[in-house]
């Protein structure tokens, strides 16, 4: 047993590929058998990941989900910023330049709209929950934009650690929802052509904390 965990620990990233692969396989099985493909396999897999992260966080008391479990530390590397950005960029491969141009002005507007709207929504909710000081409202608003900006803003303007924690939580909830929700709402918001998908990517990726 100790020998095995030694091997797992020494080959973190490879273990991550193996574990994630098995998770995805099981999730697609669940998706096909239990939901008849109605909930997409990838959404199931992400949900499984989140649930695993919750229990791992409870068990280890750490803030990095299953990556805090030593034999699964490689998942932190696989799901970390470097690999994530690398894979995101690769998805642009095959997009035609003409499609990009079509999204042009609307694309630029959506970057600003995405950030401003999220900030206002976050700030309004903060006020509704009884936060009256400018520092907390600003921090929580920033958190609603992305969970990376929230703590940076909060620290810079000297907000309470409670407000900072809330801003991170709001950002995480948002990025989770974007991941799970997208396949479900795609049909209703007209996400069926290259232009609206480009806009969507800009609007969401720029503000879901994946930036």
């Amino acid at each position, binding site marked *: 047993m100790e020998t095995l965990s030694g091997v797992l620990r020494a080959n973190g990233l490879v273990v991550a590929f193996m574990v994630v692969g098995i998770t995805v396989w099981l999730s697609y099985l669940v998706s096909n058998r239990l939901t008849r493909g109605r909930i997409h396999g990838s959404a199931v897999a992400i949900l499984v990941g989140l649930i695993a992260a919750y229990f791992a966080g409870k068990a280890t008391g750490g803030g990095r989900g299953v990556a805090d479990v030593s034999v699964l530390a490689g998942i932190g590397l696989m799901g970390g910023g470097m690999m994530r950005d690398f894979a995101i960029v690769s998805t642009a491969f095959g997009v035609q330049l003409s499609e990009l141009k079509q999204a042009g002005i609307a694309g630029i507007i959506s970057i600003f709209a995405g950030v401003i709207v999220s900030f206002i929504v976050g700030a309004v909710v903060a006020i509704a929950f009884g936060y009256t000081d400018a520092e907390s409202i600003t921090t929580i608003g920033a958190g609603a934009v992305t969970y990376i900006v929230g703590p940076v803003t909060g620290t810079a303007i000297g907000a309470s650690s409670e407000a900072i924690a809330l801003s991170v939580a709001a950002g995480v*909830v948002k990025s989770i929802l974007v991941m799970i929700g997208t396949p479900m709402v795609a049909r209703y918001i007209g996400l069926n052509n290259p232009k609206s998908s480009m806009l969507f990517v800009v609007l969401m990726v720029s503000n879901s904390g994946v930036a």
Partner: protein
Amino acid sequence: MIIYGVALLSFCLVAGLYIGELLGQLLGVQANVGGVGIAMVLLVLASGSKRLRSLTTGASGEGIKFWSAMYIPIVVAMAASQNVVAAVEGGMLAVIAGVAAVIVSFALVPVLSRIGPQSEPLPPLEVLSAAEREGGR
């Protein structure tokens, strides 16, 4: 060679992140501004360029396609390494702020899509999913 495609992809990301970092310094914010987006534009430009054809077709192209197929598994790994406990314990405020921001952003997609020329809807998602849907009913 597969490595050529992977190298091209890597170059786009590094260049994009560098430009994003410079933009951040220029704007006075301590963050990378749009680096990933810039990298994506660079890759689109590269894949459309005739001069770089040998880096984006054939085996070299496979090197890029591999990583785009790895996107979902990487997102799964990313989800599994989030601080979900904090999000859940952040309580209602966090949930409402997050949910509201997403709903409003989703609602903006059709609105913003009306700006500029309309683009043709793509054919419905792969034949497979259409068959699945029919099978489900």
